[in-house]
C-alpha cells in the first residue's frame, strides 16, 4: 500500500466510524491529484478532501468521531496522550528555535496550557484571541508543566465559538512584600523581547536592546501571595515615573539602579488593590492602585463586632 492509499484508507475509516460509507477510489484519486500533481502538503490535502466529503454528505465536521477524544485543559495531566481540545489562543511567544513554528498559551474555561506547533507539522499559523479546534494533539510535559504539541497528524481548525478563558482575572488586595530581580529600568533584546542580564540575551547573546520599565514583585495578603508583573503604565500610574522619567533619572545619576531603589522606596510595604490575569506563574496586572479606605471606620466596625 503506498502512502496515499494509506491516507485514503484512514479517511474512509474515519467516515465509516461516523456512519458514512464513502468511495475509496474517489478519495484516492483526489488525494493523489492534490499531493502528487499539485504538491499540496499532506495535511492540507487531507483537510481539503475531508471538507469536500463533508459538503458532499451535507454533514458537520463535529459528526466525524475519529478524532482523539475532546478534552478540557484541566483534564490534561499525563504526557503522551492523543487528545483534541477547543481552545482560544491566549498568547503567542517569540520562538527562537527553527524547529518550532509557533509557541504560546491556549486556554479554555478550565485552564491555560502551553502549546507548541512544530515547524514540521506544516500548519497554518494561529492568531491570538481566536478560537480553534486543536484535533489530535499530543500531551507532553516539560519542566514539570504540561503542554500540548501540534504535529503532522494534528489538525487545527478555526471555530466560530468564542471559547471562554478561566475566570482568572482576579481582583485582590495585599501588601507588596518583595520586588524581584530584573525589575526597574531593564533592557530587552530587540529580537525576542527577553530581558537581558548583564547585557546578554539568554538566546541571542550580545544583541541590540531597548529600554523597558517593569516591576516583578510579590503581593501578599497574609494567607497567600501573588507573583505579579507591573508594566510601564502601571508603574507610571502609581509613581509618576514612566519610561522617559526613568531614563532621565538613570542619566542624571549615571546609574540605572537608582530607578529600582526609587521604585522600592515608593512601592514596597504598601497595600494595593489590583486586577490581573494569571499566566503560567505570574499575574499580569491589568489595573492596580494603592489601597484607600477609611481605616478608622473599619476599626470601629471590628470593635463593635468584638464587643457584640
Amino acid at each position, binding site marked *: 500500500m503506498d502512502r496515499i492509499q494509506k491516507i485514503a484508507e484512514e479517511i474512509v475509516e474515519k467516515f465509516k466510524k461516523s456512519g458514512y460509507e464513502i468511495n475509496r477510489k474517489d478519495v484516492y484519486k483526489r488525494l493523489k491529484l492534490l499531493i502528487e500533481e499539485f504538491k499540496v502538503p499532506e495535511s492540507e490535502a487531507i483537510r481539503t478532501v475531508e471538507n469536500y466529503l463533508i459538503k458532499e454528505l451535507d454533514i458537520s465536521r463535529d459528526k466525524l468521531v475519529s478524532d482523539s477524544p475532546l478534552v478540557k485543559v484541566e483534564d490534561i495531566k499525563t504526557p503522551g496522550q492523543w487528545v483534541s481540545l477547543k481552545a482560544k489562543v491566549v498568547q503567542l511567544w517569540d520562538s527562537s528555535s527553527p524547529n518550532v513554528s509557533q509557541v504560546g498559551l491556549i486556554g479554555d474555561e478550565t485552564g491555560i496550557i502551553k502549546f507548541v506547533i512544530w515547524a514540521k507539522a506544516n500548519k497554518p499559523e494561529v492568531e491570538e484571541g481566536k478560537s480553534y479546534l486543536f484535533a489530535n494533539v499530543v500531551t507532553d510535559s516539560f519542566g514539570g508543566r504540561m503542554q500540548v504539541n501540534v504535529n503532522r497528524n494534528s489538525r487545527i481548525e478555526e471555530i466560530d465559538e468564542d471559547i471562554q478563558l478561566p475566570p482568572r482575572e482576579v481582583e485582590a488586595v495585599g*501588601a507588596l512584600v518583595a520586588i524581584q530581580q530584573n525589575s526597574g529600568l531593564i533592557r530587552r533584546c530587540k529580537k525576542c523581547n527577553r530581558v537581558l542580564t548583564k547585557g546578554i540575551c539568554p538566546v541571542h547573546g550580545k544583541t541590540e536592546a531597548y529600554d523597558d520599565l517593569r516591576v516583578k514583585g510579590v503581593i501578599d495578603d*497574609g494567607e497567600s501571595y501573588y507573583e505579579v508583573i507591573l508594566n510601564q503604565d502601571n508603574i507610571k500610574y502609581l509613581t509618576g515615573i514612566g519610561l522617559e522619567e526613568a531614563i532621565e533619572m538613570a542619566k542624571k545619576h549615571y546609574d540605572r539602579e537608582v530607578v529600582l531603589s526609587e521604585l522600592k522606596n515608593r512601592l*514596597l*510595604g504598601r497595600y494595593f488593590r489590583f486586577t490581573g490575569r494569571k499566566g503560567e506563574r505570574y499575574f499580569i496586572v491589568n489595573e492596580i492602585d494603592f*489601597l484607600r479606605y477609611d481605616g478608622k471606620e473599619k476599626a470601629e466596625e471590628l*470593635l463593635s463586632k468584638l464587643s457584640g
Partner: protein
Amino acid sequence: MDRFKRSVARRVFAFELNEATHRIESEEKLVQLLLPTGVPCSRVFIVGVLLDREETRPDSDFWKIRVSDPTGVFRGFIGKFQPDALESLLKIDPPEIVAIVSKVRLFEGNRTVVTLRPEFIVPVERDVMNYWIVETAEHTLSRIENMKKGGKELVEEAWRIYNPDLSKYEERVKEALEAVISSPKVEEEEVEEEKEEVEEVEVEEFEEVPEFSDEFEFEEEELDLSDILG
C-alpha cells in the same frame, strides 16, 4: 512547581509574636515558629514605628532595631547578610513609621526570644500603618476563632504548648483598634505627635537582654550560612 513556593508573610502583633517559643518542622523541613494562635510562621509583614537602631558593637555593621506596634515591640537585627535592609536602615532617622518584611528567628538563651531578620525596611505613610493594624486585627481574630473551634492539628498543638488566654489576646486586639481610631487624621499629622507616642511605648518595654548580642553573633553566622546553603 513547588520550587516557586515561598512562605506567606503573616500578620501578627508584637504581643503575640513575642509569646511564641515553639518551633515546628514542616514537610519541606522548613523550621517555623508556631504562633500561640495555632498557625506556623516563618515570615512576617509589619508596619510599625522604628524606635531606634543601635550598632551592637562599634563598626560591626550589625544593628539591633526595635519596632513598635500598639501592642508591644518587635526586636530584630540587620547585618551585612541583608544588604538591602542595611542600606535602607542607615538612611532612616528614627522614630519613623516603617514597613518591614522579615524572617523570624527564635533565639534560645536564658530566655527564648523571637527576633526579626528583615529582608527590607522602608519608611511608609501613616495610613499604611492603620491598614496594617486593622488587617492584623482581622487576621488575629480569625485565628482566635479557629482556636475556639479547635480540631486542627496545629491548633491543638498550640493549646497544648501555650494554652493561651484568648480573652487577653482579644483585649490586645481591641487596644490596637482603638489606637487606629484615636490616631491623628493623616492631614493633621505632625512629627511632634509621633514622637510623643513613641516615648510612651518605649517605657513599657524592657531594656536589657544581657550577653544577648554577643551570643547572638554566633547564631547569626550559623543561621545565615544555613540560609545560603539551603
